[in-house]
């Protein structure tokens, strides 16, 4: 076993070294200009746009929560807040396809998207007389703030909360949470704007060209692909498989809004968006680099992305029910996402290692 492994290593080394030492024509083409353009257009069309949308939706959500708290909450106001919450989730879940940079290093992800919620403490907070100031909410543990406590408060345990069931304390807490989410997502959005000091946009688009973070364009490309691999693995092996294997709906991440399958789908759509370089506006993406050299890989990737999204779409009941009642559909989704992960990791990653440096 050990021996064959070393032989593999050696043969790999010989093959690649021969390729490298031979004349220029046979070396893989590295189009530095296109690569730079892809990194730039990714930055504007994905992080800037998706985080921009996220920040805008959470800002609207805050306004709607304030409206709920003014002159008595109506069901129409509550429904509007729920719709906006789902729209903000859509942007956020798509952004999880590029979970690197400030969202990770500045701890924004855990502060806005921690699961499970600490319900014991949440109930105790609501029953207390603590004043939910901005600073107080900001100091709370991660499991007491962000998307999921907001979800619990506006949807209720069974997803059917009525406006008149919102207590004054619910609304005070909700207002504090919405304000905190608005602030954190605004910070996240700012972190990718070129005008911000220590802008991550600047670090990313200048990869291999004086970037403080990315010494080469290849390192930025690897970051992109590894992030796509990472979210596929997280969705198939974590978010779906863990509640499914345990047959335990309480492990589901977004149970109150019954939004889990939409979340998973948006994660994969995020992967697709990164590959295409398109969230709303279309630009140069990884797709363009792949298509220049390997149409088969491009086609395979698109097929796997579409299959994964279709497999999720084929689960027609809420995830908490599906893990009990629709095991075949759930397993098919796990498999389809795992296949997407595999082609990203085993084909797209080696591809970019040849076509970026």
């Amino acid at each position: 076993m050990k021996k064959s492994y070393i032989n593999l290593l050696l043969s790999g080394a010989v093959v690649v070294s021969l390729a490298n030492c031979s004349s220029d024509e046979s070396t893989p083409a590295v189009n530095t200009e296109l690569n730079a353009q892809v990194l730039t257009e990714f930055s504007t069309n994905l992080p800037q746009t998706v985080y921009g949308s996220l920040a805008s939706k959470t800002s609207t959500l805050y306004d709607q929560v304030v409206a709920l708290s003014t002159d008595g909450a109506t069901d129409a106001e509550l429904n509007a807040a729920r719709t906006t919450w789902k729209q903000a989730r859509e942007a956020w879940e798509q952004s999880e396809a590029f979970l690197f940079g400030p969202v990770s290093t500045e701890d924004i992800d855990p502060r806005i998207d921690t699961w499970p919620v600490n319900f014991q403490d949440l109930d105790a907070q609501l029953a207390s007389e603590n004043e939910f100031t901005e600073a107080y909410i900001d100091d709370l543990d991660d499991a007491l703030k962000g998307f999921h406590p907001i979800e619990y408060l506006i949807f209720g345990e069974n997803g059917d909360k009525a406006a008149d069931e919102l207590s004054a304390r619910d609304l005070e807490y909700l207002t504090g949470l919405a304000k905190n989410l608005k602030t954190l997502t605004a910070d996240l959005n700012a972190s990718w704007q070129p005008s911000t000091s220590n802008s991550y946009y600047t670090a990313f688009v200048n990869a291999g060209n004086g970037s403080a973070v990315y010494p080469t364009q290849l390192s930025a490309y690897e970051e992109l692909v590894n992030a796509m691999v990472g979210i596929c693995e997280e969705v198939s092996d974590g978010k779906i498989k863990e509640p499914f294997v345990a047959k335990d709906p309480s492990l589901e991440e977004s149970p109150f809004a019954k939004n889990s399958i939409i979340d998973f789908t948006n994660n994969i759509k995020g992967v697709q968006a990164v590959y295409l370089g398109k969230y709303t506006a279309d630009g140069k993406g990884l797709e363009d680099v792949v298509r220049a050299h390997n149409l088969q890989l491009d086609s395979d990737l698109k097929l796997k992305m579409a299959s994964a999204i279709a497999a999720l779409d084929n689960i027609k009941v809420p995830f908490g029910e599906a893990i009990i009642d629709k095991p075949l559909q759930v397993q098919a989704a796990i498999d389809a996402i795992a296949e997407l992960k595999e082609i990203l990791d085993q084909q797209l990653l080696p591809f970019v290692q040849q076509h970026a440096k």
Partner: protein
Amino acid sequence: MRKDKIIVRLFMIIGIIVSVYACVEPDALQDSDYSEWLSGGSQTVFDNGVGAFSTAFPNLTSAREHVHGIGDGAFGQTFVTAPAPINPGLGPIFNNVSCTSCHVNDGRGKPPGAGEQLSSLLIRISIPGTDAHGGPNPVPGFGGQLQQRGIFGVAPEALVKIEYTEKQYTFADGEAYSLRFPTYSLQNPYTALPAGVMISPRIAPPVFGLGLLEAIDEADILANADVEDMNDDGISGKPNYAWNVVEGKMTLGKFGWKAANPSVLQQSAGAYNEDMGITNFIFPHETAMGQSQYDGRDDEYEVSDSLLHSVAFYIRTLGVPARRSADDAVVLQGKKLFVEGKCAQCHVPRFRTKTDVAFPEISNQVIFPYTDVLVHDMGEDLADNRPDFDANGREWRTAPLWGIGLTRIVNGHQNFLHDGRARTLLEAIMWHGGEAEQSKDFVSNLSKTDRDKLVKFLESL
């Protein structure tokens, strides 16, 4: 962060690495140079991005990869107040809510910014004297670690205030630099703090490569020890023997900022218990036991034996990132300076792990951790003045340097040393004192170009 890597990638990239050599003079390919790219031996991984410290050993069998995955999942789980359907048992007093809250991306923590609360930094405390095993003497009413947070309605032990004072220095060539000196104070204790409490701030260290470090033979570590400085080079190097809870005896400490922890398992169990308030078979009692915050819930372990073992296995099987640009001319010149400055006396580059038939992945690997796993007197400015087993108040374990150049991309900062006081690699060097005084002076006397080369070398690790 979940990552599995495959052998195909490993040999592809080795192929590229070898090809670099293949294109230059044939005699440049020496065994030692070649291996040096692979900081973790066969367990070297090739992710240079945010996942650099989160990648599993490349050649785990699928069954072992599965255990790694279970540990990975547990490492990310957030604990909440009991009773709860998922992950109950947080606190009642704690430092943080999940492993990954401090070890973000399996990497290095940073001190809180102005106005932020402590997140990936904690404070160890003790009073003069020792406990039954020669370890730190716990503070009555507070224990050996300060928990600065509590679940709802539970008073934290105290709050921590950090203040920095800048001091200006100059290199021999006249360039100025500044170091920030921290002062720690404990505020609003839930009950009166006894006099003479010693405090030791500790930042969350990276958790990759620890299985390989654990696999270094004790004899190989002791071979570098020179407690009485018999060779008269100004560098001693002391093994720190600490209480091994599982084995019930003193064994060589390898982990933690003072090497006061003998195994990855005990380190993990201790972190569950002290940092999160999660009881387990190694540390079965709540840290608040005997204090007014104690809720009397010691009835069952809050993390199961198998899950604890899975988490320890996860940590043991996180691979070490490969070096970048190890053959760059500037990097090689920096490496030469690293050796000339006697940095490599303590930051020992190379070990071969022991043979371990029960754990083939970590067995007999040539690794490049850049540590001797011994403790050294680092001088007055870095001293915490709090002994921890055999390590005195001025002694710290030589920090491993592998992967250090990826700190910025993984964790978004360059805060180094035990409490993150250094803001660049160069500042971290200039904090060295005591046994490393001569090395610091060496760097201080370098030209700017040479200092930059030295930093380039460190960034390539």
